[in-house]
């Protein structure tokens, strides 16, 4: 309980300070803005409550894109890491390409993905999966390559097949690394989903709501949407951290 006290206290203080600064008009006048552009936490909270069904429906759309896209990225990333681990040639051949692929802005390829996959959920899944793929692959591969060579030799003299060595030594060694990659990926996956909705001509999802409210200067609801997005990212991150603690019991 004690270790939660400091972060909760900090959040309460920050929100309190913001509330005071916004309701007295201090922020707006300091930045010479209209006061409706600077909603206070209480206004955001009431907007959150008033728009709860709209936000929930659209959050569900975004959450589904994030989870499915992350799932695809996870399977592909771990699978690719295993392939690269087993094949020296593949690793040498594709690793530079893998890094180079990260330099391609998703913004640039999003329109192509929409041409290829249409306006449904598919281009969003591809964009989220592409964003998740890199941190997962790199971390899982690092984990697989961090295995003590002496442990591999030991397994060979204990009659282990290549597969048994992988299953009993290499995979468990790599697991915490893969979790680190997944935790990084899930946080950026949320950004990926919002961007995909934004660029992909969607008609639902938090990304769409944010774009609309941005244009219409619905600032309180805009902030409410950001709060929901943050909550999704935190919840997914926490779920992964919990899964890690259940699976990686030896740390």
């Amino acid at each position: 309980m004690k270790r939660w006290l400091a972060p909760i206290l900090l959040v309460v203080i920050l929100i309190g300070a913001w509330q005071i600064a916004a309701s007295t008009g201090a922020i707006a006048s300091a930045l010479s803005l209209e006061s409706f552009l600077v909603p206070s936490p209480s206004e955001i909270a009431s907007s959150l409550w008033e728009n709860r069904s709209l936000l929930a429906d659209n959050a569900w759309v975004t959450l589904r894109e994030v989870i499915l896209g992350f799932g695809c990225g996870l399977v592909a990333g771990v699978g690719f890491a295993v392939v690269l681990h087993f094949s020296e040639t593949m690793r040498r051949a594709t690793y530079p390409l893998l890094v180079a692929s990260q330099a391609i802005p998703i913004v640039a390829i999003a329109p192509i993905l929409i041409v290829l996959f249409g306006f449904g959920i598919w281009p969003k899944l591809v964009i989220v999966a592409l964003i998740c793929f890199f941190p997962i692959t790199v971390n899982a591969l690092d984990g697989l390559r961090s295995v003590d060579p002496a442990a591999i030799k030991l397994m060979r003299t204990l009659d282990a097949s290549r597969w048994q060595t992988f299953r009993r030594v290499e995979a468990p060694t790599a697991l915490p690394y893969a979790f680190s990659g997944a935790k990084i990926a899930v946080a950026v996956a949320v950004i990926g989903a919002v961007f995909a909705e934004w660029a992909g001509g969607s008609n639902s999802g938090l990304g769409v709501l944010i774009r609309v409210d941005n244009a219409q200067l619905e600032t309180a609801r805009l902030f409410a949407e950001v709060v929901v997005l943050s909550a999704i990212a935190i919840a997914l991150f926490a779920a992964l951290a919990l899964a890690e603690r259940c699976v990686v019991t030896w740390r």
Partner: protein
Amino acid sequence: MRQDTRMNAETGGISAVEAPSSAPAGGAGVTMRDLEHAYGDLRTIEQLTLAVEPHGVVGLVGPSGCGKSTLLELICGLSDPVAGTVEVGGAGESAQRLAGCAYMPQRDLLLPWYSALDNAALALRNQGSRRADARERAAALFERFGLAGFEATAPAELSGGMRQRVAFLRTLLSGKPVLALDEPFASLDAITRAEMQEWLAGALRADPRTVVLVTHDVEEALYLSDRVAVLSARPAQIVAELRAPEPRAPDRDAAVTDAAFVAVREEAMRALRGGSP
């Protein structure tokens, strides 16, 4: 050889461990003839000839970095010599050597995701035993190894001496006729090390195997081995081969303070320091 090990594992095996009388018939010897090894231009082993008779224990001592560990890897079939031959039970192919040798590395390398019991049973699992069977056979030896009650304990929670015992049990349970031990007690404190030496001598009396023991501790080598080969600095060559005094008192303190033992130890130390033997 592989066939033997396999059969042993399937027919309720590790008879070798439970009843010394049915150990792999006579065991397997290790023969090295004019062995040479190099990493690129760096010559690590030169003109090394050494034989270990079945069920014999040979200690290898030498200065740090002289290629002792490389020698064990050659014996175990983990790598091949540049020139010369190395045979385990008369077989020279690396796969055959691998099938005949079990390697116990310097660090215990117990897998942290397995319990002590599952670590000990690792070789049996690799050889195809069902988990329950492998665990049962390993558990039968936990008492004799002073590990009773620690079956479910994680390796990180065991003491250094216990970890080494689990690691040795894992090596022993592989059912291999030849054990290659790479400084098995180097990481332990002096008191635990002395206890473990006494314990290992007892374990090998109860269940004789062919053992190649690498150590930098002359006393340890002489106490545990029948013969000790002193290696030179790299490239490693044998500069002296000494026979441990017989008979040795079963009590370690009595054995290592015996006049004959001390004399041989001094001789080994002289050889190690580079004085001509």
